[in-house]
């Protein structure tokens, strides 16, 4: 067991109580010390709960599941809460789908009216022509905006490259804020760390704590604002020792970051250029 990696199958056997005592202890030790194993176990548990609620577990799995999860009042409550969340989400989805069917009804109403009342043709034709003109104007403006956005993006990319060049990282510029961020797996369920740059602040330095034991020659970060469509890739980052931790520093132009929740995905790059298992980091830029 010691050398075996944690897989979902092993995790599920453990969660269903189908392991012996020594295997249980090994798995629990991994759960405590290995963030990746912990994540695998929690994901496996989440899947088991979902499968149970959907009635997708086999008879023996259901029996094992109930023995583990129906035993203790708090566990039973968690199960009821999980059920409430899925039921609510499905009810909301059904409600959201109804505007779609309303649109279909509207479409069929328009087409049946057209067959009956041809005198509507002229006002409809005028409306369509107006719509075409408005659309053309909008398209021209949209294209201009897209060019501007593209230029802005190129500028930000250039700035990111400069800020994170090894020579720049050796210096500590004035007006720089720092934020230590544990990976999502380490930080667990707490709120993401937040920082609010002032007008005078120029650079934000994220100190991404690297929880994996193995170190890599370099790292690549992919930064995106949650809910936004753009992402920025910053390559050739390096881990440094700080106290007992490995830290990857990532510097960002403070004034280019709109307020909101951001996510950075950090991947180790092996000596042969292949990416390894990524770590996720969330942080908030305040207004």
């Amino acid at each position, binding site marked *: 067991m010691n050398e075996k990696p944690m897989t979902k199958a092993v995790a599920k056997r453990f969660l269903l109580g189908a392991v012996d005592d020594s295997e249980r202890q090994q798995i629990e030790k991994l759960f405590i010390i290995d963030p990746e194993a912990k994540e695998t176990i929690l994901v496996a548990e989440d899947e088991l709960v979902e499968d149970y609620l*959907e009635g997708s577990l086999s008879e023996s799995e259901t029996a094992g599941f109930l023995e*583990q999860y129906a035993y203790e009042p708090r566990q039973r409550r968690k199960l009821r809460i999980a059920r409430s969340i899925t039921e609510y989400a499905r009810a909301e989805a059904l409600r959201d789908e109804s505007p779609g069917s309303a649109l279909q009804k509207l479409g069929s109403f328009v087409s049946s009216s057209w067959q009956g009342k041809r005198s509507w043709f002229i006002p409809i034709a005028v409306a369509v022509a107006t719509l075409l003109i408005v659309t053309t104007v909008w398209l021209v403006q949209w294209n201009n905006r897209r060019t501007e956005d593209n230029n802005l993006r190129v500028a930000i990319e250039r700035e990111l490259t400069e800020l994170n060049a090894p020579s720049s990282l050796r210096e500590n510029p004035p007006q720089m804020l720092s934020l230590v961020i544990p990976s999502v797996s380490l*930080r667990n369920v707490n709120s993401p760390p937040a920082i609010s740059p002032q007008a005078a602040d120029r650079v934000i330095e994220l100190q991404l704590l690297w929880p994996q034991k193995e170190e890599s020659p370099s790292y690549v970060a992919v930064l995106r604002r949650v809910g936004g469509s753009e992402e920025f890739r910053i390559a050739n980052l390096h881990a440094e020792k700080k106290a007992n931790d490995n830290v990857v520093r990532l510097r960002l132009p403070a004034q280019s970051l709109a307020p909101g929740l951001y996510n950075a995905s950090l991947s180790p790059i092996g000596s042969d250029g292949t990416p390894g298992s990524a770590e996720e980091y969330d942080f908030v830029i305040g207004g």
Partner: protein
Amino acid sequence: MPRKSEFLPERFDDLLAWLNPDRELAGSIYLDLRHSLLRIFAWNRCSDPEGMTDETFDRVARQAHTLRETYEGNPRLFFYGVANNLIKEYRKKIKSHVSLEGVEPTQDAPQELEEETVERRRECLGKCLEKLPKEKRDLILAYYAREKQAKIIHRAEMARKLGISVETLRVRMLRIRIGLENCIELCLDELMENNETD
């Protein structure tokens, strides 16, 4: 056996210092450990996972000052060793008088039903969803909106739109859901406390 933790401040400081010299990081390790131990006690069907987690921290905190000087290796393993001893003690105690048979989640004890109605759960779910940022709320509701085969296709589409893998999406959703569950539990506890005082 388990009881609520009553840390002396200096003991807690020793404990944090042992976990990591950086106090902020030590704090997040402490919270992570706490969460892990709670899970472990629950998986081992201990009747009071919270109390046993407190007891584990208490026992370690009493030795933290010495451990800082003498213990070599990952402190998390030491915590696990203490927790595992507690599990063994617990098992010895309950061996004689607990049967697991016939326990169904739908067969709630009358007291549980009385205290925690569907309406209260819905009320708390609504409140806690409101507390989530809109992006997270929309994501979690979309994530759990489908079931079975439709669910797999729907989640693959969500992951594609977000530009992440389905596994990363799952981990992200798990984190939001755990936060939501904790909020609902707190809310239910508060409602029950208010009910008792009325």
